[in-house]
């Protein structure tokens, strides 16, 4: 492989990661507020189909993205209403919504399967794209990729540097304390759930109108991405930057599975195609291994030097979820 093909491949990784970044950022915001939206996988599918259908019939690309975000927002609003107002289990409702939206996408999407639709054009940034390596890697993409990169930093800044961001951290950590400090817990949870849902929805048309343009029904290859986004939220320790790194890592693994395919003729292609999924789960396990009882016991039996080094590494990787995640909150 030449350097150029590697560079093109890596640029492709950045593009492929774009929808995963959107979904991970959205879910990160929602979970930071203390709500788990498990519907991500189905939402992405329904938004991909809906966005594609809207763009195809109206021949308006941007309307397609609007519809995708609307679908994400509506599904999230349903979850928010049942869990925050009707006090039902977020897990149960989210799971049912995940299945429902997925089946809806396949059913309603039938008439559009295989149609040639519009596609977001690449917008090479003048000047910036001339930078060696970085230019080809980051500045020769469509506008959505630029948006996703900007959003990573905006989300990070919002969560850690702004006043509402501090309250957002508090909402998921300890809603009672956030309430004591003047936050309208329920309203804010609604806002972040719907906002996060809209970002997840944005991931759908990003696939069907850009990264994997078109709608191919059950063989679109999008099923499962949403579950990865949920895992990445955890991998990212609810930090937008770390979550985005995870999204790029996942896209890199997907690319590598394609790259190594010719060199491993004995391995069925299906195995390589799904390999990134179990690899992501393994990464997740590795990240949290320090929390396990057997790991703690094993560590205690090691000689001091090794013990301290390993413990330090494990502690740096370890993540703890927002303490109030998925819990209902009553003001009284």
């Amino acid at each position, binding site marked *: 492989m030449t350097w150029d093909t590697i560079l093109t491949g890596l640029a492709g990784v950045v593009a492929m990661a774009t929808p995963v970044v959107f979904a991970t950022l959205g879910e990160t915001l929602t979970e930071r507020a203390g709500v788990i939206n498990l519907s991500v996988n189905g939402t992405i599918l329904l938004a991909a189909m809906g966005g594609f259908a809207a763009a195809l019939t109206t021949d308006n690309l941007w309307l397609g993205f609007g519809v995708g975000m609307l679908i994400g927002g509506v599904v999230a609003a349903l979850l928010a209403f049942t869990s925050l107002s009707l006090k039902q289990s977020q897990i149960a409702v989210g799971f049912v919504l995940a299945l429902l939206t997925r089946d809806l996408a396949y059913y309603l999407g039938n008439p559009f399967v295989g149609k040639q639709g519009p596609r977001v054009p690449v917008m090479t940034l003048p000047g910036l794209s001339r930078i060696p390596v970085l230019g080809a890697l980051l500045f020769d993409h469509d506008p959505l990729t630029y948006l996703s990169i900007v959003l990573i930093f905006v989300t990070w800044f919002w969560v850690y*540097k*702004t*006043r*509402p961001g*501090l*309250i957002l*951290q*508090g909402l998921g*950590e*300890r809603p*009672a*304390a*956030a*309430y*004591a*400090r*003047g*936050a309208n817990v329920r309203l804010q949870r609604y806002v972040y759930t719907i906002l996060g849902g809209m970002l997840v929805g944005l991931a759908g048309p990003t696939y069907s109108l850009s990264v994997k343009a078109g709608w191919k029904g059950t063989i679109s290859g999008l099923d499962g991405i949403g579950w990865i986004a949920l895992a990445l939220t955890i991998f990212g320790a609810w930090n937008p930057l770390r979550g985005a790194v995870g999204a790029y890592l996942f896209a890199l693994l997907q690319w590598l599975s394609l790259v190594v395919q010719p060199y491993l003729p004995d391995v069925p292609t299906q195995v390589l195609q799904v390999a990134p999924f179990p690899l992501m789960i393994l990464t997740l396990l590795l990240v949290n291994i320090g929390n396990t009882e057997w790991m*703690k*016991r094993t560590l*205690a*039996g090691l000689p*001091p030097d090794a*013990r301290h080094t390993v*413990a*330090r590494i494990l*502690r740096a990787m370890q993540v*703890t979820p927002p*303490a109030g995640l998925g819990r209902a909150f009553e*003001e*009284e």
Partner: protein
Amino acid sequence: MQVELRNIHKFFGPVHANRGITLTIPAGTIQGLLGENGAGKSTLMKILSGFIRPDQGEIRLDGQSVTFHSPADALAQGIGMLHQDPLDFPPMRVLDNFVTGSPGGLLPDREDARQALLSISQQFGFSLDPDAYVDTLTVGERQQLEIVRLLWLGARVLIFDEPTTGISAQQRQKLFAALRRLADEGRTIIFVTHKLEEVQALCHRVAVLRAGELVGTADAPYDLDRLVEMMFGKVISVGRADPVPLGETVLALEDLAVEDHRLNIRGVTLNIRAGEVVGLAGMEGSGQRRLLRAAAGLIRPTGGRVRFLGRDMTGRPYLDFHRAGAAYIPADRMTEGLFPDLTIAEHVALARQRVGFFLRAEAMRAWAQEAIRHFSIRGRPETPARALSGGNQQRLLLALMRPDLRLIFMEHPTRGLDLESALWIWGQLKNRCRQGAALFFMSSDLEELLNYSDRVLVFFGGRVSRPLPATELDVEKLGQLIGGYGFDRVVNTAAPAAHTEGEAA
């Protein structure tokens, strides 16, 4: 600011938690609010701080009638409440915690906040590091952070709900000094407690609540017998229990070592005999809990040996200790001790029914009723554990212990319990000792350590004292040792020097 509560009523379902409470608190005073658990103190304070709304009654501040829609609203009008478990955000840094919820624009002015945090802290002699993470702070420091924050946001009335639970003697002194100072500056302090000695040491005046009613008020100096009578409706006396004859060695720790990422404790050697009570003292987080857990097999010690009834049990899991006749009762009763949603009957069945696949309803009921009677639990067989008060949860835990135990580990046996429950619990524990069990416990209540232990181990700065006979200690001396004064003289010099790591947080 003068606070007036007028005819406050509050119902929770059928429970009448506040029954027409009327109380006036002048500015510049420290008002004690005394009562047993469940007397309605917390409810009244939550009403005053805007967390819940009264069903009837009026609150007046400096003569003006006010209504609070939320705690933030109450704070805006000058009333701040410090909760027993400080309402902060443990994974955040101190400074972020401090600015969260403060009014202002999109971007918080962290430099300004840092200056305010440092200068207010300094006034009260608190040393808070703005960049430390809150979960590395002790409960006492987290309280200090809340006090500073509430003052920064302009609180003129400060409510403290059982603030001395879980803090060290030194931190308590610092807290009391701060409260006196705040009162001198004209702020109103309301101090909720069930400890008489705290009322005596601190409060200018006291109001006593019992079963939701204000049963009386008194000004300093107090007639303690009268206060006790008001609290309980009868007189209880605290006395040292009779000595229990000691038997064979039950638990032997040999050169035991434990560590976590900031502590490194080594060389603990101790024999505990049947009938003996050994207490672990020290500031929260000094390693008592880790040592206790390592001795019970809940965590693996990093060095040394643990022998239980003569058998080497080093590194074995807690389940093996449990089978051999040990029980560990954690401080956090709801998350580690009991199943919140299971009923008393189900708990008892879990502990007692050893055969059969199906639960036997009549037997469960009978056992539960027996446990309720025998352990004076206020509840019915079908009451879920979460609905029990702290004292009754602890009674249920005791009821679940096997009758033939040889060793009981306990964290804070009476934390958060009222005097009557505490005395009852210790009566039960002493009975167990008379039946041949040994008791190994940790506590931050100095009186408890001195009253009930035969020997005490003091933890300070990553080191452990040799076992000190409780009869050679008093509250003052023990308090000094916990704070490190004269600690070098009680460290076991025979053991290899222990040390804390440089990276201590």
